[in-house]
């Protein structure tokens, strides 16, 4: 109370002192414009305490000057218009001076406040960004936010791969978490908006006392402001804290994502390592077996013909086993997500490689290739698509009668290459047409049921489709491959 009254007391007292001083001076000499001394008082009060003490001093000065110096001296009345004008000018100048001084004080106070806020924010930001644990930095930030007048709650929620996780500023109820997720998913603020560092409280709140939800890039800030009209400085501080929280949440998410990527990479590496060691473990014994069995087949080994025949049978079984293991490993690799080495290839080259690989099985069989010379190249992994052709040709060899024909061909159609392999064996039962590509499904008693499953996986990995159908001549397998972007080099 006393502190509030002090500037007014100074206004009145100061005016009286100045009036006495002017009166004293005027006893000795007459100086024009001495009344401006009042302005010094008004100025000082304005700068020091603001507008109202300055106004009080202006009014006091006006009254005292009128009473003591404006003739008729000793009364508040004035004699003529010129005296009146003199008084009005004094009052007006005093009021304007006071006003200017007061606004100077205000802007000074504001810049002081902003500087203080910036310092506080800077310290907070440095502390937060330096701390290795993002969560502890977030807690620091929440504590600071609660220091703002009128802010009764400030909590931060992280959005981790679609799940809302309370990170700092206390626990949230299930409903609040749901609300936070909603705000984040829809990018819609509830109760409060923050744009370009400016906070606006929404008039319409869902219900009194419920917090506001501000969605950020990687999370949500839950804020409850008690007062209806918080000070602008407080709102600025709050906005800055929300901005900082956004940055920290981004940092947290980036860390989480790289950790997750490392995890996936490690699991991929593990899968690849397991598969490679498995293939070595399974194939090495078969390799020794085949090398041994085929060694004894040589005439110089000196075995009887029936013994040699038996060894050859055994070697065929070992070879079958080898193919089965190979198919299983190939399928596991495809399922683990093999990386395709896609390049432009001519379809004829792919067929050539496959036919060469099967040349001993194809010996004496009629294979026709129907493909134009100027077929556009396809963008494929040569080795994987080679496997598709080999598997389809092997399947055709299996089903075509001994004197039967195998036909393969390709046309470019609708931006893809459509290729097929056909044989004149018995048709596939209509109910099985879709099932032939299922893993382990086979029509043969001794088939592995993997060949066509591998074809489907490889074709689909290239973004193509594969289907089985019965043509007039026999079953046909048709698949599509993507065309290469380049039409022809040179």
């Amino acid at each position: 109370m006393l502190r509030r009254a002090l500037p007014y007391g100074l206004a009145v007292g100061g005016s009286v002192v100045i009036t006495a001083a002017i009166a004293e001076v005027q006893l000795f000499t007459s100086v024009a414009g001495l009344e401006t001394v009042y302005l010094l008082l008004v100025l000082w009060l304005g700068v020091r305490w603001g507008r109202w003490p300055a106004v009080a001093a202006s009014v006091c000065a006006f009254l005292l000057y009128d009473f003591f110096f404006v003739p008729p001296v000793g009364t508040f009345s004035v004699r003529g218009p010129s005296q009146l004008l003199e008084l009005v000018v004094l009052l007006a100048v005093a009021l304007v001076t006071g006003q200017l001084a007061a606004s100077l004080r205000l802007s000074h106070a504001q810049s002081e406040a902003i500087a203080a806020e910036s310092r506080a924010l800077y310290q907070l930001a440095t502390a937060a960004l330096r701390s290795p644990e993002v969560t502890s930095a977030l807690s620091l930030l929440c504590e600071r936010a609660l220091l703002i007048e009128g802010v009764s709650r400030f909590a931060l929620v992280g959005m981790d791969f679609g799940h809302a996780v309370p990170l700092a500023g206390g626990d949230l109820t299930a409903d609040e978490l749901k609300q936070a997720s909603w705000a984040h998913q829809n990018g819609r603020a509830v109760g409060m908006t923050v744009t370009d560092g400016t906070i606006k409280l929404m008039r319409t709140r869902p219900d009194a006392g419920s917090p506001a939800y501000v969605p950020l890039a990687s999370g949500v800030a839950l804020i409850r402001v008690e007062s209806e009209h918080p000070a602008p400085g407080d709102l600025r501080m709050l906005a800055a804290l929300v901005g900082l929280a956004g940055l920290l949440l981004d940092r947290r998410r980036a860390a989480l994502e790289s950790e997750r990527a490392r995890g996936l990479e490690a699991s991929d590496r593990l899968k690849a390592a397991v598969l490679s060691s498995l293939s070595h473990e399974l194939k090495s014994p078969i390799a020794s077996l085949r090398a041994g069995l085929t060694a004894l087949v040589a005439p110089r080994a000196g075995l009887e013909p029936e013994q040699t025949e038996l060894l050859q049978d055994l070697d065929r079984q070992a070879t079958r086993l080898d193919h089965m293991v190979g198919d299983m490993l190939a399928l596991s690799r495809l399922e683990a997500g093999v990386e395709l080495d896609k390049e432009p290839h001519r379809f004829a080259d792919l067929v050539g490689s496959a036919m060469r690989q099967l040349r001993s099985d194809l010996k004496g069989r009629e294979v026709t290739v129907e493909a134009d010379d100027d077929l556009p190249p396809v963008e494929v992994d040569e080795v994987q698509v080679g496997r598709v052709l080999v598997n389809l040709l092997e399947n055709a060899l299996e089903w075509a009668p001994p004197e039967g024909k195998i036909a393969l061909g390709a046309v470019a159609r609708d931006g893809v290459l459509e290729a097929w392999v056909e044989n004149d064996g018995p048709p596939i039962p209509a109910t099985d047409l879709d099932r032939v590509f299922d893993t382990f499904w086979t029509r043969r008693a001794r088939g592995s049921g993997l060949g066509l499953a591998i074809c489907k996986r490889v074709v689909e990995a290239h973004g193509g489709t594969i289907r089985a159908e019965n043509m007039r001549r026999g079953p046909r397998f048709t698949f599509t491959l993507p065309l290469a972007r380049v039409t022809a080099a040179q």
Partner: protein
Amino acid sequence: MSGRVLVVDDEVEMQRALRAGLGYHGFDVHAVGTGEEAVRESASWRPDVVLLDLGLPGMDGFQTLAALRPATRAAVIVVSVMPGEKDKVRALDAGADDYVVKPFGTEELVARIRAVLRRQADLTAGEPVIRSGDLEIDLAHRAVSVGGKAVRLTPTEYELLRYLALHAGKPVTHTTLLRQVWGDYAVGDKYNTRYVVAQIRKKLGDDSSNPRYIVNEPGVGYRLEAS
């Protein structure tokens, strides 16, 4: 044709099988289980062919290959279980003469060993005419003919065919072909080799979908079939 074959494989069963199998085909076989021994033996025993398994304990196949290459003139055939195409290319680029995928039959292996031995013999004899079926490449006269009929090739086509002919029977990687025919700047543009090979096949009257002369090594490169 016989010769000395050094088997480098850490599996005793495989060593025994190859010693017997290759022995029946007239080869003189010596088997070791580590890369260090292989380097030592190839210096003292002087094999004609080294059968090198890539999955060795300790000093691995690639390290052994690197150590063997300057020390010995023996042909190296790399042997591996399910090698990736990158491994094949790496082995060929490191100086291997061929690769064989495990498991293999003895006949197949013998054929590959004979092919590299024949190539070595041809190279030392400085044979100026290389044949692949009825295809003849006369290196001295830069002349190419199929069944006695001359074939006109562009300089690029001839260079590519010549390089394959000099290494007849051996898989040549895309990178090597690009470097040898076009120069270092072209390395990486595999479609170049595919295009030129297609042109050569057309001129030789060969069928890409069932080639007789230049065959594809999927994921690796090309090989000129040796007659």
